[in-house]
């Protein structure tokens, strides 16, 4: 089957703001139970289960057969509903909705221990009604014997895992767990596998080789995917509930198997098993049923029009401000370019001549112009003869900026041409990559060789520490601002923010690309699309394990070009490159 690409990628789809009444109407058929490509299990047929949940309701089930059940929640009146169950070894997962409501349950029962985890689900619990809400309860099946003291519980034991999954429906995904609060997913079949996205997620340990994973595609369709996974066998059974981009209900059970694609690093202290989430004491308190940490970037970065951006930029441009949280480990300012004159000639026909009047001041002109434009610039020598520098193109209609990597030993240049404004947001950057050569007295550039896009970074994770840590007199050490990049696909990058104990926390993802400059030296960009609109550009040196870079963005405070500098640590790699090869129709 050829790769099919959507008209819009997930973060661009304007999902309908469904009303509560619309959702209730669409759920009517779901009362008959979920669909499933695989045969549903009759593991509970003819049986009764009384599930006692800590701080939650007692759920009394009677399973008529493999498709119908009755449920009594606490002392409420029993209701009849359709359901579906699947088993993975001795773990059984079943799901049902409650007719004429927007509620339902997913219940996971370990038939050996009688421990249970229940997800109560509901729609219309957030301002975007279509986003599935959940409350997770731990408990047990009441067999009449003494209540067990053990429980399933939240865990970091699958943090860092990565899987390729192929479900019985034919859907293929890559899923990465670089955080205890979030996960990455790449929709290889539904969305063509170009980008990864991030979703708030739950990770629950059943046993050493069985876990529950659950995500809700918050800020997108609001769909929930919940499954039991076996890391050894790389098998899953699960359920998916939500509304797609055409507002059609998807309520299905699935069985899948896949491939283990690797394990990236964890940064918690040894012995920290993730039984609590280490949020700082100033984090917005997660209170109330179903509350969780969700990164909603457009709440804090409202969309601006082009006119609003133009007005803000006219008022203020902040170029390379020295006080910068992401430049605490910046590379030294280079003087390599100072005094030089050169031309950067690109394969797209553009050429720009430069006169570097000092270490921070330059003049440039387009090919054919007679006058010179003066700009402030910053530059860094990441490797001998490899200079990264950036500057605005003052007066350009799209508030253009260049982030440039020039290799003076090979006469090659790659430039990321940033512009402000997209069809979606006025305050969102766009970028084009230009390859070319350096023309300068004493330097003869190659005729055919160029820097190239590369997939050598794909699947890698690297931590980036932007500022030195702080030691306290009592011996405690607080790390400086640090994040982790996961180069999740050839065309996207995720950034993960560490919690106080080093566990992965909130994360988000954006389009990206990677250019190889030299061995172990890569020029990367990412766009924080449908977010704050920033274009991040960094030159990653895996020999010195540091980056230098320039961020470009605009908002209500105007336009900014800012320095980035961080120290790196390798955090492992997922072996995923083979999944990104375009699929084509094959005929015999």
């Amino acid at each position, binding site marked *: 089957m050829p790769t099919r690409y959507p008209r819009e990628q997930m973060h661009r789809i304007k999902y309908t703001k469904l009303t509560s009444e619309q959702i209730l109407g669409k759920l009517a058929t779901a009362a008959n139970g979920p669909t499933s490509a695989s045969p549903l299990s009759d593991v509970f047929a003819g049986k009764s289960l009384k599930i006692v949940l800590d701080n939650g309701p007692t759920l009394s089930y009677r399973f008529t057969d493999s498709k119908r059940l009755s449920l009594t929640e606490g002392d409420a009146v029993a209701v009849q509903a359709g359901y579906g169950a699947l088993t993975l070894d001795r773990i059984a997962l079943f799901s049902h909705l409650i007719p004429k409501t927007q509620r339902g349950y997913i219940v996971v029962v370990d038939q050996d221990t009688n421990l249970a985890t229940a997800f109560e689900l509901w729609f219309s619990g957030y301002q975007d009604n279509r986003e599935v809400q959940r409350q997770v309860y731990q408990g047990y099946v009441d067999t009449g014997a003494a209540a067990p003291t053990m429980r399933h519980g939240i865990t970091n034991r699958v943090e860092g895992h990565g899987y390729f999954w192929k479900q019985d429906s034919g859907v293929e995904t890559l899923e990465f767990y670089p955080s205890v*609060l979030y996960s990455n997913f790449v929709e290889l079949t539904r969305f063509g596998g170009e980008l990864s996205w991030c979703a708030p997620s739950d990770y629950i340990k059943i046993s050493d080789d069985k876990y529950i994973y659950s995500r809700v595609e918050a800020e997108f369709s609001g769909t929930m995917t919940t499954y039991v996974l076996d890391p050894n066998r790389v098998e899953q059974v699960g359920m998916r509930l939500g509304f797609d981009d055409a507002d059609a209900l998807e309520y299905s059970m699935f069985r899948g198997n896949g491939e283990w694609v690797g394990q990236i690093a964890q940064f918690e202290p040894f012995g920290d098993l993730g039984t609590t989430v280490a*949020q*700082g*004491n*100033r*984090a*917005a308190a997660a209170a109330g049923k179903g509350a969780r*940490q969700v*990164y909603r970037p457009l709440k*804090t*970065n409202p969309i601006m029009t082009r006119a609003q951006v133009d007005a803000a930029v006219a008022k203020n441009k902040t170029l390379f*401000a020295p*006080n*910068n*949280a*992401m430049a605490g480990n910046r590379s030294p300012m280079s003087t390599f370019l100072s005094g030089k004159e050169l031309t950067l000639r690109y394969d797209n026909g553009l050429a720009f001549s430069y006169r570097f009047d000092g270490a921070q001041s330059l003049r440039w002109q387009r090919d054919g112009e007679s006058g010179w434009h003066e700009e402030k610039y910053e530059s860094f020598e990441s490797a001998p003869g490899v200079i990264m520098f950036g500057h605005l193109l003052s007066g350009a209609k799209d508030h253009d900026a260049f982030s440039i990597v020039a290799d003076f030993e090979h006469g090659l240049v790659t430039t990321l041409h940033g512009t402000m404004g997209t069809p979606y947001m006025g305050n969102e950057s766009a970028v084009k990559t230009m390859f070319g050569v350096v023309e300068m007295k004493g330097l003869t550039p190659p005729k055919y060789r160029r820097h190239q896009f590369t997939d050598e970074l794909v699947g890698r994770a690297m931590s980036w520490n*932007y*500022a030195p840590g*702080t030691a*306290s*007199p*009592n011996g*405690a050490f*607080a790390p*400086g*601002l640090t*994040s982790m990049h996961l180069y999740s696909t050839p065309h996207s990058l995720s*950034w993960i*923010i*560490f*919690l*106080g104990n080093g566990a992965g*926390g*909130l994360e*988000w993802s954006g389009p990206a690309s990677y250019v190889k400059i030299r061995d172990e030296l890569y020029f990367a960009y990412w766009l*924080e699309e449908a*977010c*704050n609109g*920033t274009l991040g550009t960094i030159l990653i040196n895996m020999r010195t394990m540091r980056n230098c870079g320039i*961020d470009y963005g605009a908002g209500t405070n105007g336009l900014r070009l*800012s320095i980035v500098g961080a120290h790196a640590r390798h955090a492992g790699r997922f072996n995923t490159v083979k999944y990104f090869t375009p699929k084509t129709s094959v005929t015999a």
Partner: protein
Amino acid sequence: MSTTRRTFIAVAGAALSAPVAAAAATTSSWPPTSGGRADSLEARLAKLEDLNELRALNQAFARHVTSGATEELAALAAEPSGVVLEPGVVGISHDGVGEHDVIEIAPDRQTATARLHVAVHTETVIGPDCPLLEMARQQGGGVISRAEPVVLEKAYVRRDGVWKILRVTAVRA
């Protein structure tokens, strides 16, 4: 901390603090020696009760500072409206078991002073804003955390029969 002395709780000022300073200068230390003459059993019991109340007050103070419970913290002070926590202070933890701490109660049992060895936990917000910090703050990060050993010098006054905190000053240990 940039200075050697910091005031954690601001109160009404010189009019209140001067008499306390005078009272503190005439206090006897605990356990009392009283020039070789043993205090009466009743007096010793009363001072033990005072000591326990002051220790409980100190623990509550540390607990409320750490939890950010400003209303509860204000209720511990002689002048609740004067309670102003220094920006960046997010917690206090007591060092050891108090073996180096000293609490002195005035003979009239109306004022007291203490020197308590603690660690003051501070957080300095990293800035200026950037997208990464925005996410870090949402999950309780985006700060530089420090823990510094200090001696808390406290002054207390009894109000309506209840010990209240009059002043707290941190001195670098």
